[in-house]
């Protein structure tokens, strides 16, 4: 079974340009998460989809970031216009559906990340 895949693996863009990152979750996983790691800092939660709906987008830095999940399958994260501080590694993760509790916690499976460099 294929794991979580992310494209591209690396992206180098100029400040002011637009970049779109893509994440393909494990087939059948309803939950899809985006996280970001700025160099030297912790991995931070950005947002969470349940199927095609945004469950929690409290971690999105500002309105230059737009996430979508078409048909509850793959997801894209668009940064427009990109700024220097957007540089970092963007991780996607997915997990099976349903509410989580002690007996039903669904492991998040992570992709390899997209390294974004804004010059």
């Amino acid at each position, binding site marked *: 079974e294929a*794991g*979580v895949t992310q494209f591209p693996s690396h992206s180098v863009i100029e400040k002011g340009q637009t970049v779109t990152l893509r994440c393909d979750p494990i087939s059948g996983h309803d*939950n899809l*998460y985006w*996280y970001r790691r700025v160099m*030297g*800092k*912790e*991995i*931070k*939660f950005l947002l*969470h989809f*349940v199927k095609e709906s945004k*469950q*929690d987008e409290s971690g999105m830095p500002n309105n230059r970031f737009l996430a979508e999940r078409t048909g509850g399958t793959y997801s894209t994260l668009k940064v427009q216009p990109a700024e220097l501080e957007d540089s970092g590694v963007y*991780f996607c*993760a997915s*997990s099976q559906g349903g*509410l*989580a*509790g*002690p007996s039903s*916690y*669904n*492991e*998040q*499976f*992570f*992709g*390899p*990340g997209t390294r974004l460099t804004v010059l």
Partner: protein
Amino acid sequence: AQSVTQPDIHITVSEGASLELRCNYSYGATPYLFWYVQSPGQGLQLLLKYFSGDTLVQGIKGFEAEFKRSQSSFNLRKPSVHWSDAAEYFCAVDGVMNTGFQKLVFGTGTRLLVSP
């Protein structure tokens, strides 16, 4: 707010020596605790997790971790390190009990170097 502290940015251990990576968390209730590992070019892989019960949990690749409520710690240990263990290790906490949905909070990571 939840937070996780990994005080060691880098650790170098000789192959065959024991390893302990430190993790302290801040959370109002009993958290769900995790250790992930990221090898170069790979995604984060779950090593082990703690929800409740026995405070010593076993994970994959020979790792274990001990939950100590009194110290708010969840340190990762391995008795004998192999060169393939060189990677970056992340401790994480999840406050899912509040919402029913997962939202991992990570530490800054500890990079493990293994010397011959």
